[in-house]
């Protein structure tokens, strides 16, 4: 019996871990209704170095499964996070992650959205 390899199971591992370990978020592509799903979200803050002062602001990192979202997210998408009620975010710096199965991106807050 051939040994199973990790590559053939990577996609399933990601989707399973999202279901079991993910945070619930809402993703709204411009031409679609809002989609609630579980995925990996880092809610961290980060200190930004400016000219001679500094500021602490969100440095949220979100991963989305390419199977669920074949189209690359862009700044017209809207994302809400239950842990940050009343705030709406848009993707920025959208990259493919190491595995190639997922979009990985930071967000910019959309004031007044």
């Amino acid at each position, binding site marked *: 019996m051939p040994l199973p390899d990790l590559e053939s199971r990577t996609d399933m591992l990601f989707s399973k871990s999202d279901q079991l370990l993910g945070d619930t978020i809402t993703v709204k592509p411009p031409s679609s209704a809002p989609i609630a799903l579980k995925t990996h979200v880092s809610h961290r803050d980060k*200190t*930004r170095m*400016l*000219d*001679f*002062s500094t*500021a*602490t602001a969100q440095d949220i990192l979100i991963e989305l499964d390419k199977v669920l979202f074949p189209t690359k997210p862009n700044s017209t998408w809207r994302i809400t996070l239950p842990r940050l009620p009343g705030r709406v975010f848009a993707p*920025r710096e959208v990259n493919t992650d190491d595995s190639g199965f997922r979009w990985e991106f930071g967000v*910019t807050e959309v004031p007044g959205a």
Partner: protein
Amino acid sequence: MPEPVAAVRKVQAAIMGAIAVVRSDLTGYADRSTAEPLSDGEWPGYVIRYEVKFNLSPELGQFFNDALFTFEVQSGNTAGASLDQINQQAITDISNALQADPTLGGMLEDIQPVGSDNSQPDSADVGSAVLQVRATYYTLVRNHEVIVGHGGQLFP
């Protein structure tokens, strides 16, 4: 007896006071190091720093002080970030507040904005911009506390 206060600190306090009259919502932070970032609840605000050059005045009776005050204004999480509208208005209000009485109550020879610019680097999440202002004033010779203002008025 009051604590001695360096002349430049008196000028800084007068600058921040003049700004607070015009923009009470714009909080000023002196003595704020880069290890103490501004954050939610502190925007819009500015961090102020200064550098001073001293020279003996031509008549040798006073020290001439040439101070460069640098403001970095932060608007917080705005749509445009960088030198956005909120920061541009803050810079304009600060400049106007200081020009309204360029002697700051008779203390200074003059105060003039030098220029403003985007912060380098800036951030996508925090709008920030820089304003520099040049203030000139006199102190007693070999004394860095007592300012000699207009008409010889002393600011001890």
